[in-house]
């Protein structure tokens, strides 16, 4: 998929999302006008309106370029050759959804796991899994990192900051 096709889909999604917000979410989930001041939905509507307008404008530009057969600048049509190495503000590139899933799924499982099996076990398991996912195959190293990091954060939270450790407590 070229960059311009991907951007077109993104603009269409933004337009859909904006319309959803304007027609359903904002009217339903903002308080009614109390009779003074500005309406609670004013600023949300303006911000979503800006999103909608700019997305529509971008689609118009893309449409006009396609209709007049005038090519868009190459940096807007194609992906940079060097993924994420162009430095600076933009890190435009192709999505890597399998990689994203490989990282996000253990993170989500950590959040859920902490509530059921406690911070100590969930964090240890998470660190072992994430090191494996990243590519570390040195089991002793992984074990040491997982144990030490879990313990250090436990001590820092519990005794350093006096913050309750999340989830059910094993060592109490």
């Amino acid at each position, binding site marked *: 998929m070229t960059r311009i096709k991907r951007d077109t889909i993104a603009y269409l999604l933004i337009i859909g999302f904006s319309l959803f917000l304007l027609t359903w979410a904002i009217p339903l989930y903002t308080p009614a006008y109390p009779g003074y001041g500005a309406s609670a939905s004013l600023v949300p509507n303006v911000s979503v309106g800006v999103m909608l307008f700019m997305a529509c404008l971008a689609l118009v530009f893309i449409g006009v370029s396609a209709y007049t057969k005038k090519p868009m*600048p190459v940096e807007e049509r194609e992906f940079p050759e060097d993924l994420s190495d162009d430095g600076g503000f933009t890190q435009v590139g192709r999505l890597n959804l399998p990689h994203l899933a490989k990282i996000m799924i253990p993170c989500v499982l950590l959040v859920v796991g902490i509530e059921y099996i406690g911070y100590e076990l969930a964090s240890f398991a998470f660190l072992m899994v994430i090191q494996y996912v990243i590519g570390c195959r040195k089991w002793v190293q992984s074990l040491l990192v997982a144990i030490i990091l879990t313990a250090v954060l436990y001590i820092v939270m519990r005794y350093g900051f006096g913050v309750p450790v999340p989830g059910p407590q094993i060592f109490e």
Partner: protein
Amino acid sequence: MEMIIAGLLDSISPVSLIYVFVGVAVGVLIGAIPGINGPMAIALFIPITYYMTPLTAIGFLVGLNKGAFFGGAVSAVLLRTPGTPEAAATSWDGYPLTQQGKGEKALRMALYSSVAGDFISTVVLIVIAAPLAAIALFMGPSEIFALISLALTVIAGIGTTSIGRGLIAAGFGILIGLIGTEPVTALPRLTFDVYQLGSGLSLIPVAIGLLAFSEILLQLEKFSGKGGGQQCTHEFSNKPEDRFLPLKEFFQSFKTLLRGSAIGIGVGAMPGLGAPVASFMSYDQAMKRSKHKEEFGKGRLEGIAASESANSSVVASSLIPLFVLGIPGNLAAAMLMGAFMIHGMQPGPLLFKENAQLMYGIYGSLLLASLFLLVIGRFGLRFFCKAVNIPAMILYPIVMFTCIMGAYLGRSSMFDVGVMLTFGFIGYFMRKFDYSYVAFLIGFILAPEWERALQQVVIISEHDTFMFFQRPVAMGLMVLCIFVIARTFWNSFKEGRKKRAIAAEQAKNG
């Protein structure tokens, strides 16, 4: 005069010196950790200061805050995972320098700019706090609304090649910033019946997700691409020109540094804007005024100078409204206000009258904190650079886990961790699709204050449409705002037309 000398002598007592030094050192370490910033550190250490004298307590806490601002730059430069939101702009040029093996040089620039900006701001605080605060007293809701509008329009174009995408991101950020309790009716808005959203989304998990976690997701892609077992670390060059920062090179960015300090002082003295706004505005101005615009974002030292001088200047200048009017300008100042009150002092107009010697002692401590930051940063540089030489297979899990727990620490809530992961996910897509996460973050930070000012204007003026015409400063700022929008769109249109002409020429030539 005796009072001034007595106050300054108090600040150089051995106990006071030790506490300020320790405060700065702890602040640097804490600021480098994503999720823990200056205000949080102040809140955590306030109980420790119960048993200190007022001077040592305030000196310690201010040192903590100053150290945290530089600490955020350390992780921003070396890992591109800013420890604090205001260090994000530092990472744009700092990290490319690290990739080129010049991480130590980038850190030196960050340190010297941070110290310089902080020192200038502290001198301004001491010299002209009262006149500046008198101006701030005239800032009503109209002026604050106009000022925030201007800040939003200036920043919309940062962090993206397209102003349109910047505005979409800013709009989205404003929308997310409005989730929570509506200020007039005090009823929930856009909470989707999720009770944890009743108080809105906290800045820390959103900032960690957008700035740090999404960056880690992107950096880890390189490992997936090159094969899982390979360890990639950044090599630091041993060449003196890549490690050290000669005075001549530092002074090449001096004008930028002064401009950044001025922006930081102005922004810090205004309640509600904050260090991230100062940092991004300074960076934007440095880039626009530079003869080497194209080098920004690829390792330009000027970019680091702009960002660090601005965000560090906010530390002292945010104390101006606190000391003179008793109004905290930002979260850190609010925490310090608590510390003052714990020690029996009420910040405000009478503070100087009733505690003159103490206030001059605090000024002395502020200046000493700048000096200690220079010393600690200078000797800590080697240690920081070595920390990055930890194999990536160990470093990235540590950083990821710290992000996750850092998000939890703020409110002891796993919901915040979920928020952090969500915005990490969103941030990944924003970066890949070239939507400015900076504009999003600034919109998110400024939205509540912006709407509050608007509501105040509408209520006070009783729906008078021409209310802004009665406030010349607000009127001037709104005109400037419209000018900035028009100029940005015009420049974007001209640049787009030029690029399309080049593309057409290239297509014609085959």
